[in-house]
């Protein structure tokens, strides 16, 4: 296994500005706080969590669209924030797919212009060669050749997302960062796009970073998953292990809240009370302690580090949920 992307102590704080002139108040939003993970070549790594947990900020840091407060991201062991790092080369290798295909396509550009633009920017092809490659990309994502000179408004949501995917793939990237790629799509179209992404991964040996709040979709597409809460990774591991035997009380509660499309699985579940607190100046103890039903004194004494509880299954909790002993108690 080759590590393709690695984040070390990745932290991003945004200063809170107050007043008309935006004077700094000294507080800051801890959007991403000491996040560590590594992504292997060819895998699908999921980042999940509720809104405001920092998953999109992580994506922006990986893409070098934001500079971290401290910590690093390395791409093949090279620090991407280093001055000598070839950013343009990396931008070709790491591509991005956004949630909303309605706002990520320029309405004044035809499909030809949209998919062709990366060829111009990276000076990969022009003229007939460019057109040939655009048509090839369109075929790969399932668009017909007669779509070439159409505008985005002439397409449905699913087709637009195919255009976005074709644009991302046109420069032969290694990594696709996907921020809620199917959340805006209808149910019947979502499966088409998910299956397409799966086939493309096999065909081009792509590495996916899949960001979503939809845990059902994450379970379907990801190999490994990291659960985020208030800017920190609280649990990380193989998707089946994390989803079947969550160790962190937050992961357990989150998974319990996801409805299952089966009326017989309806159960009176323990619902997490309260809401995600503000990420402005979070406490220096476990950020979940106040909502946690297992919280003890120790939880208020310090911030639990992310440690390997079982092989390849990491958790940031002093008292991880142990399913087996729980069952015995009952």
């Amino acid at each position, binding site marked *: 296994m080759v590590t393709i992307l690695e984040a070390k102590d990745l932290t991003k704080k945004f200063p809170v500005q107050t007043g008309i002139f935006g004077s700094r108040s000294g507080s800051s939003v801890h959007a991403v706080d000491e996040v560590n993970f590594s992504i292997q070549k060819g895998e699908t790594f999921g980042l999940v969590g509720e809104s405001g947990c920092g998953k999109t900020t992580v994506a922006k840091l990986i893409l070098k669209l934001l500079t971290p407060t401290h910590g690093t991201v390395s791409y093949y062991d090279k620090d991407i924030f280093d001055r000598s790092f070839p950013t343009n080369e990396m931008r070709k290798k790491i591509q991005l797919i956004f949630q909303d295909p309605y706002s990520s396509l320029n309405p004044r550009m035809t499909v030809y212009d949209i998919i062709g633009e990366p060829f111009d920017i990276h000076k990969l092809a022009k003229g007939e060669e460019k057109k040939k490659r655009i048509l090839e990309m369109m075929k790969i994502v399932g668009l017909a050749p007669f779509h070439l000179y159409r505008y985005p408004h002439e397409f449905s949501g699913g087709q637009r997302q195919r255009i976005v995917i074709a644009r991302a793939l046109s420069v032969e990237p290694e990594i696709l960062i996907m921020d809620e790629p199917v959340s805006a799509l*209808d149910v*019947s179209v979502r499966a088409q796009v998910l*299956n397409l992404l799966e086939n493309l991964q096999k065909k081009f040996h792509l590495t996916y970073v899949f960001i979503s*709040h939809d*845990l059902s979709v994450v379970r379907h597409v990801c190999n490994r998953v990291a659960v985020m809460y208030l800017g920190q990774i609280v649990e990380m591991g193989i998707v089946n292990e994390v989803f079947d035997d969550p160790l962190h009380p937050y992961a357990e509660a989150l998974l319990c809240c996801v409805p299952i499309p089966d009326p017989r699985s*309806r159960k009176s579940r323990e*619902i*997490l009370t309260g809401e995600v607190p503000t990420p402005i100046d979070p406490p220096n103890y476990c950020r979940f302690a106040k909502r946690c039903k297992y919280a003890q004194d120790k939880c208020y004494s310090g911030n639990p580090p992310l440690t390997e509880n079982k092989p390849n299954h990491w958790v940031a909790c002093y008292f991880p949920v142990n399913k087996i002993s729980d069952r015995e108690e009952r």
Partner: protein
Amino acid sequence: MKSKSTRNSPDSSTRENGQNNSVLTVRGLRVYFFTEEGVVKAVEGIDLDIKKGETLGLIGESGSGKTVSALSLVQLLPIPPAKIVGGSVFFENTDLLTLSDKKMREIRGGKISMIFQDPMTSLNPLYSVADQIAENLRVHRKMLPDEATKEAIRMMNVVGIPDAERRSIEYPHQFSGGMRQRVMIASALSCLPALLIADEPTTALDVTIQAQVLELIEELKQKYDTAVLYITHNFAVVAEIADRVAVMYAGYIVEEGDVYTIFENPKHPYTIDLLSSIPRVDKKLSHLEVIRGSIPNLITPPEGCRFHPRCKKVMDKCSKVVPERVEINERHFVRCHLY
């Protein structure tokens, strides 16, 4: 257990709904939009029955006509371009479609109330939340201002807004999304409606907050015996909350039945494929079923069955004749030529 009263003998007569405790009976409702590009046939003759204390999940993709149906029940559609071209909506033995605006206003917010997807746009930013809940009570239950405010605060407690007394003078922007939705629910239930129409009330919320809101709706439904029309595109939410399910596609209800029948023994090809195309959180599916193509344009919908261009079991007849609504089992209706 779900209430057994939902298993009454089928009753297709519209006017005798007093006997079978139907709160709402819709027959042949058709809603068209007359636009410059042409006539959008958004709702093409739907039939619905909701009984007291029953939750009907109306499920469909975007553009299937679920919201238009709901809005036309309470006459909230913009007319023009919309026009209700046919059908009847019986609510407590009166046809809502024949009522005057004034009469309709008395029912809306009182006996029938609604919750929408985005609580921020349905709450007035210039009034405190208690004032907004109290307004409802003053208008519909003729309460005096003090009494109404007191009742508003009580309702805020009922829906689980912590520290309700203090927060009652706050404004919508001071509330989080989940709490705003609770304010909406408090307002909607303050007049003890016979029917609650909830249009995607949890779609904008995070899963943990969604679970809280779903539980709240269920709890209040039990408490007040309210009938609920729950509109969503999410099958998992329907499985969680509905007693009966109606699946909409391109303006038609293609299948309707109780929640167990729809999930365990679906008959319409659209329902079958849709159910096997959704990923699940509790187990990994080896393969997601794909429905080819996308939702049709309703200005020029496909002839015959509107699902036929995407259907795997399409026959010659499907592109020519609109399938009738047939009852294949007790209270299990399908619109498909296969049956």
